């Protein structure tokens, strides 16, 4: 049974088991490797993508839950060649170190700012729960505030 999902504006009809996690559908079936595998239990957020404008952790979300939905991955965040403001801020503030968690971090922040255009530190603390082992948290916070203060 084919499953229809739209990823970065492109609709795919995939012959795939419906319980396949969205993460592995994106990485293996569609070949978009910007979205990362970190823990497999929705704890770290490295696999975060946007589904219908909401940040979701894709490692435990079955692809069937995204059927008919609009998925955006890190590869689809830039529009018409222009980086998304979060991506731009990540360069300006030199946020990534190893960078492995940052696709998920950027997707989480992009969705968060849609809901919280002027977030307080408490809002950021409550919503941005992705794990980063390199310790980029201070720069993540700085970059978020810089985006919203423009």
């Amino acid at each position, binding site marked *: 049974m084919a499953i229809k999902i739209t990823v970065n504006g492109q609709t795919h009809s995939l012959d795939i088991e419906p319980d396949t996690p969205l993460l592995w559908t994106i990485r*293996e*079936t569609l070949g978009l*490797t910007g979205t990362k595998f970190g823990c497999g*239990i929705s704890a770290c957020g490295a696999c975060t993508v946007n589904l219908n404008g909401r940040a979701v952790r894709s490692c435990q979300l079955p692809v069937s839950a995204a059927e008919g939905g609009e998925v955006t991955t890190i590869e689809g*965040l830039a529009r018409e060649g222009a980086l998304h403001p979060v991506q731009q801020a990540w360069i300006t503030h030199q946020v*990534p170190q*190893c960078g492995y968690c940052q696709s998920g971090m950027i997707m989480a922040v992009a969705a968060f700012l849609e809901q919280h255009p002027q977030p307080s530190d408490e809002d950021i603390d409550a919503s941005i729960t*992705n*794990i980063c082992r*390199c310790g980029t948290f201070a720069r993540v916070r700085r970059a978020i505030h810089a985006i919203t203060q423009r």
Partner: protein
Amino acid sequence: MRKWTRRAFIGAGSLVGGGFVLGAGELLFAPSRQSVVSADAAEKGQLTTWITVTPDDLVTVLVPHCEMGQGTHTALAMMAAEEMDADWNLVRVREAPALDAYANAYMLRAFAGNIPAPLVRGVDWGAYRLARWFGTQATGGSSSVRGTGQYGMTVAGAAARDMLLAAAAARFGVRMSECKAIRSRIVHEQSGKSASFGELATAAAAIPVPSSPALKRPDSYTIRRTARPRLDIPSKVDGSAIYGIDFKLPGMLHAAIEIAPVYGGKLTSVDTTPAETMPGVKRVVRLDEAVAVVADTYWHARRALAALKPAFDDAGHGNVSSASIFAAFDKSLGAPPTMPKNAAKTVAADYRVPFLAHATMEPMVCTARVDKDRAEVWAGVQDPLNARSAAASALKLNVEQVHLTNLLLGGGFGRRLPFTYDYIDMGVRIAKAMSPVPVKLIWSRENDIQHDYYRPAGMARFAGALDAGGAPLAVRSSYAGGGDGESTFMPYAIPDKHAAARDAAHPVRTGAWRSVLNSQHGFFKESFIDEMAHAAGKDPYRFRLDLLNHAPLFRDVLERVAALSGWGSPLPEGEGRGIAITQCFGSIVAEVAHIAVTPEGKLRVLDVFAVVDCGDVVNTDSAAAQAEGGIIFGLSAALVGEITIAEGRVVQRNFQDHLMIHLADAPRITVEFIKTYRRPGGLGEPCVPPIAAAVANAVFAATGIRVRDLPIKNTPLSRQTKTSA
């Protein structure tokens, strides 16, 4: 770009299609090899540094170190470009391939900095031989800038500049001394003539390599000592960066693995049929110590692996637990160290730190293709040469029969260093079973947490003595779990200082974890000196400072962190400050933690102030990032991180029980670097060791509760708080 080969390495002077390359071979055969580096540095090692200039004016720097977010690629390129007076916008960087020629003597040399000059020659030669012998092309020991950069990149850059100057002088018909390099052009001001690096590159390739190029004076730097955006960052914000886990080959299969839960255990039995009938499964592969499922996708492999119920033996370690290990430590430490008879007051304390996992965000991954007597491996590792050798040994091939391509690392922290390549060993054996089809082995997070080379657990037993005036007479300790002269070193002027190693072996596999032995001993020694200060009735900062009159570098760092943090200014009830200072990998770091503890015992680290003397800073912004990162890494360990052992195996499984701090827990961090011309020290690790003691000392200041066992979460802090000192 043509393929780099060993032949090209040794012989290259000019490039096919024009341009020039400055390589190790050229410098190795220069008439006065010693003076190429410095008067007192007599390496016999090749320069593991290459600079290429092509007709399109691009300067490409080939770096023999991996990039794992520490900014090494950019910093080393800055060091070369500075000496060349290159236009930074025209500089590119690539990682050197895993070939013997890049064996990195410079890294080992970075550790020889404190050796008296007459011995340096022997050490260098020995270190170089050692590097070649072990096949080291490692990135570790906070060594890239202070070793490869200082002894390789700057000299190669200066030599390249002189060759371009000589080529320009010949072309213009003027004296070389009248020419200047300015932003990737050689200019002769009197005649107004000028030519770009690219235009001169081919002619420069024919110029003999200068034997003693002059290095720039640090006060004339225009690229170093500035904040340059890291060259690797753009690819890390749009998903285009390719890490080990992202690598793909046509027809590649995927493997998931379950490993004997007790280190050293063997697979005793497994019924493979439940997996073999599942979708996409190609084969179940039995290894001595593991069982792997190979399938068309990783998800299929992972799901089928979960259907298996393999049985493993426990290698005879089924009785080992954290409690049994610490009991053995305790026994090995024996009676508390004896104190001088004239002591007016004595202090005694035991400290304990647990095993820790590296938990890099990218789990361990190895892609391999094995075809008869040849193998290809793709992975992200801190030492491609040693990883290649691990693959060769697993396949019983010679290293020349194995080709390894290094990819970006999703974190290292020591987990991907030499002699920790179990995942490569397993990956190539699985690929051999599927030969010639390529296989990518991805470890689950559970594999990663339960099969690490852990930061060694440790315990220390301290005793100290004070005279009637509160001045320290002695600090003596014994420790178990590992240590060395650097990690146990206390800079303080105390007449009787002694640290004795004890041995208490256990079967838990250990390795280097960001700052190696310094995270444990930084906590031990800087907690104890704080206890001494309080016993003497003195301010912990003043107490330390009074013992550092003989050590101006330490004193300067400590004074500045006190000023930066507002040390001594009043704090509200329940808040406190703690201070700690350590030295490792050629750098001195002092940190002050400002914390708050609620009456219910909830601890929050509000601010961390750090002052760093890592010598001459190359890239100021990525240096600050390394300090911030080191503090957060150390803070996770101090507050919540631990690996515990029960029935011989690791208890923790994934991020739900192997804890680390999140953004909400992260303090504000303020970092200041000492401005100095002192040659660069390391920076990837030195900011980790002080933080645990700084926080524990702050907890004492705020609550009167002395935390002697990490992580701090295991010590209840729920009591009436008192006003801090």
